[in-house]
């Protein structure tokens, strides 16, 4: 204690000393000084500056030339927005799309609130950014090879933005604004863009392109207005909610939603299954109830502390039985609903996990609830997926364009996550055969290109299945992609696993945790936290690589741009505008994800430990 009392004033003195002896701040003379310091500080930097100015002007002019190319028809993009984003989804059912987007935006808002995202943004910096953007637009206006009206327009807009930025940074100066007002401003900006900017009203009417002047089509801008307001409302609602319930509870709910919710939206909202309620009541519900109740009872027993080897034996035989069901299916010995087979497998996994979660009554009950929840959601989704859709879709996959890209990226990440963890655990395990198998798998998959694997799965999977069994092409592609992604996921997770010190393992062992308890409660939580930046990186990669689906014939964003649009009679050969447009979409998606993850990283302090 005495130590700290002695040192505290010393540091104070030091600070004062430094403050007193600091050189006087040199008053800045604005732009000239700045340029002297950053652009013309020496001969070599001056040369660099001129070199880069020339280069940048040439490149920018060329890029703008692509955009303002008189032969490029941007109508091809404007008219085909629906195709690009939702492909052939029937127009009269669009309310489902809006509902889905609304649900996702609400979830984003709630998630922001649950994690208390509230960065303080410096007005000065924002103003500076605006000045930069404005200046860039003005410069582009000057050098763009376009008509003089466009050029003047760009220059005027650019100057206005720059003046606005300069103005707010002068007036509001050192102030910081918090997150919600910032969101309000951004939302206001987009609303203004929606309602004021005369993009024109492009659509196909009876197969012919119509291009009316004015702002965007009301069928687009009204839903978006509602959605933007909904998003703002959900942020506020989430903040209010956090004061009532524990943030931890809301966080868990949101995580659960992000895992299950999209599946729900895709298969029950977007696809609109036509449930045969008679069959649902007579087959699906009894099976689900049976699994939930009988399975729950057995699991309750299995999770009893004293069960011991009998429990293990039971779980092992349940696993063998569940696997055997598939062997029997391949060999055609006896038939069984696929749903039932799956349920048996999941049940076996729960049974294997039971000793890990064994405990006192309340703990066991939680375990059983987890099982009942899994059964309920799983059966509901499987029934939904297996039921025909009411939608009348021109060209089959009910999802296409951007939606398909997103869905595939999402599911691939979701499916490869557990697989990757298992592979990583096997590769770092002490058991040599597991290590060998996992290493072989990972190195093989990482050694070959994704496209060959996608080809393999899209063409070949059915060759490996016995007669009569088939896998839809899109499902096969998804499977291949997930298996591919798992190998990369495994390497990322392995990095996290290796960052955990032996002491953590030893302490867990000394406390008597079993290997699986150690893995679940101690090792994985720490390893995954370290892995987050890499996982986001992989998510971005996966999102970008969904474009490969276009090569194997899926109608994702890329395929619409490179194939569908240039083949329309009105826009024959018009591929550049659409490709440039999807470049912008992919860029916006990946860039915002990487920015978000960088912010998250600094906030959590992960990766720095």
């Amino acid at each position, binding site marked *: 204690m005495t130590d700290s009392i002695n040192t505290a004033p010393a540091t104070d003195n030091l600070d004062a000393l430094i403050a007193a002896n600091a050189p006087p701040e040199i008053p800045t003379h604005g732009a000239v000084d700045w340029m002297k310091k950053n652009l013309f500080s020496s001969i070599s930097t001056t040369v660099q500056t001129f070199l880069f100015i020339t280069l940048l002007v040439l490149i920018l002019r060329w890029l703008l030339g692509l955009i303002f190319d008189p032969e490029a028809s941007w109508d091809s993009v404007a008219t085909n927005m629906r195709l690009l984003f939702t492909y052939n989804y029937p127009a009269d059912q669009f309310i489902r799309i809006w509902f889905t987007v609304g649900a996702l935006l609400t979830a984003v808002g709630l998630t922001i609130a649950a994690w208390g995202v509230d960065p303080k943004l410096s007005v000065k910096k924002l103003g500076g950014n605006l000045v930069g953007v404005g200046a860039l637009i003005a410069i582009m206006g000057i050098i763009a090879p376009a008509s003089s009206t466009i050029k003047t327009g760009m220059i005027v807009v650019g100057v206005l933005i720059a003046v606005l930025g300069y103005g707010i940074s002068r007036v509001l100066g050192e102030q910081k604004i918090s997150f919600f007002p910032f969101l309000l401003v951004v939302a206001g900006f987009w609303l203004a863009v929606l309602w004021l900017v005369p993009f024109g009203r492009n659509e196909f009417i009876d197969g012919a392109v119509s291009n009316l002047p004015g702002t965007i089509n009301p069928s687009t801008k009204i839903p978006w207005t509602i959605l933007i307001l909904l998003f703002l409302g959900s942020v506020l609602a989430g903040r209010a909610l956090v004061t009532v319930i524990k943030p931890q509870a809301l966080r868990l709910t949101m995580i659960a939603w992000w895992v299950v919710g999209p599946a729900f939206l895709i298969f029950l909202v977007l696809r609109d299954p036509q449930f045969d309620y008679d069959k649902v009541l007579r087959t699906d519900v009894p099976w689900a109830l049976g699994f939930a109740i009988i399975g729950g009872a057995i699991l309750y027993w299995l999770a009893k502390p004293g069960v011991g080897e009998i429990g293990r034996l039971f779980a092992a035989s349940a696993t063998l039985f569940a696997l055997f069901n598939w062997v029997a299916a391949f060999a055609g010995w006896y038939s069984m609903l696929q749903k039932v087979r799956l349920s048996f497998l999941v049940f076996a996994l729960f049974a294997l996990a039971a000793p890990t979660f064994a405990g006192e009554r309340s703990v066991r009950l939680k375990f059983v609830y987890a099982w009942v929840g899994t059964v309920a959601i799983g059966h509901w989704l499987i029934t939904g997926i297996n039921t025909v859709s009411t939608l009348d879709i021109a060209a089959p996959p009910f999802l296409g364009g951007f939606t398909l890209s997103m869905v595939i990226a999402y599911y691939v990440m979701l499916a490869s996550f557990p697989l990757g963890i298992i592979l990583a655990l096997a590769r770092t395990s002490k058991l*040599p055969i597991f290590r060998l198998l996992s290493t072989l798998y990972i190195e093989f998959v990482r050694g070959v290109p994704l496209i060959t694997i996608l080809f393999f799965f899209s063409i070949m999977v059915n060759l490996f299945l016995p007669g009569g069994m088939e896998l839809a092409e899109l499902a096969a592609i998804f499977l291949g992609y997930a298996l591919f992604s798992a190998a990369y996921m495994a390497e990322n997770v392995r990095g996290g696993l290796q960052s955990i010190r032996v002491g953590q393992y030893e302490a867990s062992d000394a406390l008597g945790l079993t290997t699986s308890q150690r893995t679940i409660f101690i090792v994985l939580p720490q390893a995954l936290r370290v892995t987050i930046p890499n996982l986001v990186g992989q998510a971005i990669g996966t999102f970008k690589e969904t474009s490969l689906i276009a090569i194997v014939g899926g109608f994702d964003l890329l395929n619409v741009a490179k194939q569908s649009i240039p083949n329309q009679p009105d826009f024959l050969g018009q591929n550049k505008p659409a490709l440039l447009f999807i470049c912008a979409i992919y860029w916006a998606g990946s860039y915002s994800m990487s920015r978000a993850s960088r912010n998250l990283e600094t906030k959590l302090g992960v990766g720095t430990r």
Partner: protein
Amino acid sequence: MAAATPSSLVPDRAMHHKRPPFWRNVGVLKWVVQIVVLLLVIGAFWFLSTQALSNLDDKGIPVDYNWMSGPANIQLGEGIDTVPNSAGRALWSGMVTTLRLAGAGIVASTILGVLIGLARLSNNWLANRAAGTFIETLRNIPVLVQMLLWFAILTSLGDLVNNDPETAANEESGPIPGWLYISKKGISLPRFFWADGFYQWLVFLIVGGAIAMFVRRRIQAKQNLVGGTAPTASVPLAIFAAFAVVGWFINPVVGGIGNVFDAMESAWGSIPESGMRIFLSVAAVAAAALWIKRFLDSKRSPAGLAKLTDDDYFRMIFAGVAALAFMAFAWRVWPGGASWLINSGSDFWGWLGDKFGNGRNARPLDGMRPTINEGRFSNYGPTGWTMTVFFGSLFLGLVLYTASFIAEIVRGGILAVPKGQTEAAMALGLSRVQALRKVILPQAFRVIMPPLGNQYLNITKNTSLAIAVGLSDVVQVGQTVYNKNNQTLAVFGIWMAFYLICSLTISAIVNFVNGRLAIVER
């Protein structure tokens, strides 16, 4: 002591001394679980492959590689052989195209990436920001989309032959007709290529290089003893140049080497098939035995052999099993393998014999201007250097995309060297260049190399996107082949093997370089 021990403990200990039952014995259980999983995996493989084989059988598609030498009936867009006479030759042409693309991509993206990475570190604001924008823009757009965009842009360039109906001119267009063409067919320039005398000349270069290196070592050794400056660069260079110049004129002198190679060809070709197999089997067993011996030796010390763990036994057993599996492969699974090995070995020697053979033109290098044939470039062979739009769009997409990653890696690597290192080097009186060469770069390289190697792997794998624009790489050719003859499974096997070999080679090279750098650093 025994008297002091409570007597109650004695029976207790005796009771616990027996082995635990196997279902509770950790040492047994862990092997049981592993072997069960292994059997499940093998079983699944076996099941799926028998399924596939029987399905193929039902469709009447034979599962073998004999079709490789059969006629191809396909025409490739570009490659070393655009009208291959066999499917195997077509695939080979595709592989060469892939390798060319990967090699060119690796070199170009490294250069560009390093430049941009350095610009990103520059204290010139403009350079810094421009590099940052480049990186953030290009790495966030899928490489496939970039390639297709480049393809769209390049194919909208001007025509190669200008058929203007008004002037009725039918003339070659291009910035400098006859020398430089830039058109929607691609870019073409004059080029130098290896002419007939090249290989003989190469002998001179190798010998000259070796002698120069030797001399350099001697000079350096002397300098180490005496100190001061010595002509470590100029004298060896002069020696090398002398060999190069003299070799240029008298290279046919060493044509006799071709005969040696020809002799090797016939010697190799006369190896009996069973001899080859026996040799392979013996080699496999010997390798396994040697490995086990080395392994045991590493466990031996003056105190005697160490206690071996389960894991150690597994390794040794695995080595043995691997040798047996190799033998099974050579004798049963692929009985033709031995003769394939013999044939391709002797072909290789024959090829060398041709290249080094006698009676060749003396000039090692030759030049050629672009040639246009029926409105197309003739690419490859004795013509100008041509990059078609297919190759070009792929190349541009790959290089720009990968360079943005390499730039970040380079920047990160250089920033990873602590500032204190530069200061320490300066304090020792090293010059800026010396500090960079001897202190900063070796450390930065160590950080840069592994992720850089990953990028090289990515380039190689991303060349497979060639199929999106229709460049005849190994994937595209393979697809054409199996669309013709339904040999999907076999073609997939070739793809996988090809890419795995490429990946392993690149990893090996990167690891080797990394190892060298690590030693340099120490």
